[in-house]
C-alpha cells in the first residue's frame, strides 16, 4: 500500500510482522473500518481546520516523527487552494454586486441634492476597497466621469471621497487611463488649491501616479497649469507631501525648457533651496536634488539657484550617508559651478571637495575636479583657500589616478593652472607642484594620444610652473621643451594647411591657434633659464617664432615677440633673429596698442641693434617715439606732431625696406634671390625657412 489511497504509511516487512504480532487476524476488518472513517476526518481536518469541533481529534497515522504523512504534506497547499477558491467565489460576488450598483450610483452622483451625492460618493469609496468592485468601477467611463464631476462640484466632504476614489483607481493602469480619459487631470490640478489637506494629498498622489505611468499625462498637467499650482505647494511643511510634489516637478521639467522657466517664474529655485537647507528626510532631499539637477542645466535657472544659496545648501549634503543624494548634489554643483565663480561663503564646500579628490569613485572625482576648476577661476580667495587646504597635492594625485580619463584630467589640470597664477599664493602652488612630484606626470600629458583640451590646459600649467625659477630644471629634465616644440610645429602646420586667416582649425573643440599660442607662451617663460634658452634655440625654432610675428592673432604675436626677446639675450640667437629678417615685423609691432607686444618688439630690436650703426639705432628710436610715447601726453608734446607723422610714415617704409635688405647671412644657406621685392622676399624666405626647420625637426 503506497498510501496514496488510504493515507496510511508504507509498512515494511518487519513492521508488518510486528503489527501482525500486535493485532490478531480476527480484528483486521474492524481496524480497516476505523482507518477509513478517520481518513475522511483527517482530510477534512487538513483542509478545513476551522470546521473541527473543539476537542475533536483524528486517529494519528504518523509512525515516523521525522516523516510527515501524505495528508500532512498536502495540508498547506490544499488550504491555499481552498482560500483561492473562496476568494474567487467572493470576487464573483463583489463583482456582481458592483456591476448592479454602478448605474444607479452614477445617477446618484449627479443628483441635485448634495446629501445624496455625498452618500453616493461614500458608497463608491467603499466599493473601491475591494479589488473586484474597484475593477468594475474603473471599467465604467460614466462612473469615473461622475466621480470627477463630484470632485469639483461637491462640498468638501464629497470632494474628499471623490479624491479618495480617484486615488484608489490610480493604482491600476486601467484606472489611470479611465481618469485620464474622463478629464481627471484638469480637475485634480484644480484640487491642488483645496483648503482640505486630505484632498490635497489625494490629488497630488493621483497626479504623481498619472505622471509616472500614464502616457500623455505630462502634457495634460502642463496644459492645465499644473506647474503654476505645484510650485507654491513647496511651501507646505509635510516632508512626504513635499517629496511627492518635488518628484512631480522633476517629471514635468525633465527635458522641457518651458516647464523649467515656469518653475523659475514661480519662485521654484528659492523654495527648492530652502528645502535642501532645512529638511533632513532623505527621500525629500533626494527628490529635491533631482529637480535642482534638472534646473541646473537651464541658463536662466542657474543664476537664480546660485543667488538663492544653492551652492552652500547642496554642499551641506556632501558628507551624508546617502550615496544617491551625494551624487545628485555633486552633479548639480558641477552644472552650477560656472555661474558661481563670484559666490562667497564657499569655504566649507571647497574643503569638502579637496577631501573628495581622494576618492576612487570616478563620478565623484569627475565632479570634484570640475567644481574646483570653476570655483578657482578668477577668484583669488578660493585659490588661496584651496592651496591652504592641500589642494595642489590632492589635484596632482587625481591627475595620476585619472590616467586617460579626460573628464577628470582636464578639470584637474585646469584647476592647477588656476592655482599657479594670479593670486598671492601662486608661487607657493608652483613650488608645491614640484615638491609633490607633479612635474613628470604633468609633462607626460603632452604626449600622444593627444586629447587637445588636456594638452591646452597642460601647456598653460607648464607656462605657470616655469615662472618659478626652481621649476625650470625639473621641467627641462622631464622633457618639456622638445614636447612643446613638437606640439607647436604640429599645430602650426595644421593652421597653415588651411591657408586662410578667416578659417580656424579645431580638433576636439580646441583651435590649433590656441595650441600655437600656448606652446609659444610656455617656451617664452622657459627661455628665462639660460640652459633652456640654449635648448630652445638649438631646436631651430627661431625662424618659426619670426614667422609667428606675422600672425593675425594678437596673443600669438605677443608670445612670439616675448620668446624672441628672451632668446635675443644670447648674442648668437640675436644674430639668428636678425638674419631671419625679424626687424621688419618687429618695427610694425612697435606700433601695437598692446604694451606687452610693443615692449618685447622694442627690446628685441635693441638687442639685435647693439652692434649696428648709430643710424640704425636712430631709426629704431624714431619708430619708438611714435609708439611708446603715444599714450604719454607729456612725452608726445616734445615731438613735433604734424610733420612727424608724415615724415615718420615715409621714413618707416624706408627703414622697413632698408632693414629688410640688410639681413646679412642666412641661417639656412642661400635664399631665393628677389631682393627688389621686399614683400615677396619676406614670404618666400619664410616658407623656405619653415621647410628647412621641419626637415631638421621631423615630427614623430
Amino acid at each position: 500500500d503506497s498510501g496514496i489511497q488510504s493515507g496510511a504509511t508504507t509498512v515494511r516487512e518487519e513492521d508488518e510482522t510486528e503489527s501482525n504480532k500486535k493485532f490478531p487476524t480476527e480484528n483486521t476488518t474492524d481496524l480497516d473500518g476505523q482507518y477509513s472513517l478517520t481518513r475522511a476526518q483527517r482530510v477534512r481536518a487538513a483542509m478545513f481546520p476551522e470546521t473541527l469541533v473543539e476537542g475533536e481529534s483524528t486517529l494519528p497515522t504518523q509512525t515516523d516523527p521525522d516523516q510527515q504523512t501524505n495528508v500532512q504534506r498536502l495540508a498547506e497547499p490544499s488550504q491555499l487552494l481552498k482560500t483561492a477558491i473562496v476568494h474567487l467565489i467572493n470576487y464573483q460576488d463583489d463583482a456582481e454586486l458592483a456591476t448592479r450598483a454602478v448605474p444607479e450610483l452614477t445617477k446618484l452622483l449627479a443628483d441635485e441634492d448634495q446629501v445624496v451625492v455625498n452618500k453616493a460618493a461614500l458608497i463608491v469609496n467603499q466599493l473601491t476597497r475591494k479589488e473586484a468592485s474597484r475593477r468594475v468601477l474603473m471599467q465604467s467611463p460614466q462612473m469615473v466621469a461622475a466621480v470627477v464631476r463630484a470632485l469639483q462640484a461637491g462640498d468638501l466632504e464629497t470632494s474628499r471621497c471623490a479624491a479618495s476614489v480617484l486615488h484608489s483607481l490610480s493604482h491600476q493602469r486601467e484606472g489611470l487611463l479611465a481618469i485620464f480619459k474622463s478629464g481627471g487631470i484638469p480637475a485634480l490640478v484644480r484640487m491642488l488649491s483645496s483648503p482640505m489637506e486630505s484632498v490635497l494629498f489625494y490629488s497630488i498622489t493621483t497626479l504623481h501616479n498619472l505622471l509616472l505611468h500614464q502616457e500623455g499625462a505630462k502634457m495634460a498637467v502642463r496644459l492645465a497649469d499644473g506647474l503654476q499650482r505645484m510650485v507654491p505647494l513647496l511651501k507646505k511643511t509635510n516632508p512626504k507631501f513635499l517629496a511627492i510634489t518635488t518628484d512631480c516637478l522633476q517629471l514635468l521639467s525633465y527635458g522641457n525648457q518651458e516647464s523649467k522657466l515656469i518653475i523659475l517664474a514661480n519662485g521654484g529655485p528659492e523654495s527648492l533651496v530652502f528645502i535642501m537647507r532645512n529638511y533632513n528626510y532623505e527621500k525629500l532631499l533626494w527628490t529635491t536634488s533631482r529637480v535642482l539637477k534638472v534646473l541646473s542645466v537651464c541658463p536662466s535657472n542657474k543664476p537664480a539657484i546660485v543667488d538663492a544659496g544653492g551652492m552652500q545648501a547642496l554642499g551641506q549634503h556632501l558628507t551624508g550617508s546617502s550615496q544617491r543624494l551625494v551624487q545628485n548634489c555633486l552633479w548639480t554643483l558641477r552644472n552650477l559651478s560656472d555661474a558661481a565663480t563670484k559666490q562667497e561663503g564657499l569655504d566649507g564646500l571647497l574643503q569638502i571637495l579637496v577631501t573628495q579628490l581622494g576618492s576612487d569613485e570616478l563620478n565623484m572625482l569627475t565632479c570634484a575636479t570640475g567644481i574646483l576648476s570653476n570655483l578657482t577661476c578668477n577668484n583669488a580667495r578660493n585659490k588661496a583657500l584651496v592651496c591652504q587646504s592641500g589642494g595642489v597635492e590632492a589635484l596632482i594625485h587625481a591627475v595620476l589616478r585619472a590616467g586617460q580619463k579626460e573628464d577628470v584630467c582636464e578639470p584637474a589640470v585646469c584647476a592647477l593652472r588656476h592655482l599657479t597664477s594670479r593670486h598671492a599664493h601662486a608661487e607657493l602652488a608652483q613650488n608645491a607642484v614640484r615638491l609633490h612630484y607633479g612635474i613628470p606626470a604633468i609633462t607626460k600629458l603632452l604626449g600622444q594620444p593627444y586629447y587637445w583640451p588636456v594638452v591646452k590646459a597642460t601647456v598653460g600649467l607648464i607656462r605657470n610652473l616655469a615662472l618659478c625659477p626652481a621649476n625650470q630644471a625639473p621641467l627641462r629634465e622631464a622633457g618639456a621643451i622638445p614636447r612643446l616644440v613638437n606640439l607647436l610645429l604640429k599645430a602650426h602646420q595644421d593652421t597653415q594647411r588651411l591657408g586662410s586667416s578667416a578659417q580656424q582649425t579645431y580638433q576636439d573643440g580646441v583651435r590649433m591657434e590656441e595650441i600655437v599660442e600656448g606652446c609659444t607662451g610656455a617656451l617664452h617663460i622657459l627661455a628665462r633659464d639660460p640652459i633652456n634658452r640654449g635648448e630652445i634655440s638649438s631646436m631651430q625654432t627661431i625662424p618659426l617664432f619670426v614667422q609667428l610675428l606675422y600672425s593675425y592673432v594678437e596673443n600669438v604675436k605677443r608670445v612670439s615677440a616675448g620668446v624672441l626677446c628672451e632668446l635675443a639675450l644670447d648674442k648668437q640667437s640675436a644674430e639668428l633673429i636678425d638674419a631671419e629678417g625679424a626687424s621688419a615685423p618687429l618695427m610694425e609691432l612697435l606700433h601695437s596698442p598692446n604694451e606687452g607686444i610693443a615692449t618685447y618688439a622694442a627690446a628685441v630690436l635693441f638687442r639685435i641693434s647693439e652692434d649696428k650703426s648709430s643710424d640704425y639705432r636712430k631709426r629704431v628710436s624714431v619708430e619708438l617715439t611714435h609708439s611708446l610715447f603715444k599714450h604719454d601726453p607729456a612725452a608726445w608734446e616734445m615731438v613735433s606732431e604734424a610733420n612727424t607723422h608724415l615724415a615718420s610714415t615715409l621714413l618707416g617704409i624706408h627703414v622697413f625696406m632698408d632693414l629688410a635688405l640688410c639681413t646679412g647671412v642666412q641661417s639656412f644657406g642661400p635664399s631665393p634671390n628677389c631682393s627688389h621685392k621686399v614683400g615677396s622676399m619676406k614670404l618666400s624666405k619664410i616658407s623656405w625657412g619653415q621647410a628647412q626647420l621641419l626637415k631638421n625637426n621631423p615630427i614623430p
Partner: protein
Amino acid sequence: MNREEAPGKSPEEMYIQQKVRVLLMLKKMGSNLTPNEEAFLRNYAGVVHSQMSQLPQHNIDQGAEDVVMAFSRSETEDRRQ
C-alpha cells in the same frame, strides 16, 4: 631726421629715454636683462627715476586668463527607487 627730434632733446637722449623705459617695462613683466642692460640702467639712474612713475600700474603680461568650463551635463534620468 632732425625734424623728428624733440625740442631740447638730442637723438641720443631720446634713445636713452626710450631704452630705459623699455628695459623697465621688461623688468616689470618679469623678463631678464643682459648685464649690459643692467649696467645701462645703473648708468642712467636719473632717467630711471623719472620713468618709473610713468610706467603703467596694471599687470601687462600675465599669460592666458582663467577660463570657466561649461558643464552642460545632458540630463540623464536616474534610476527611480
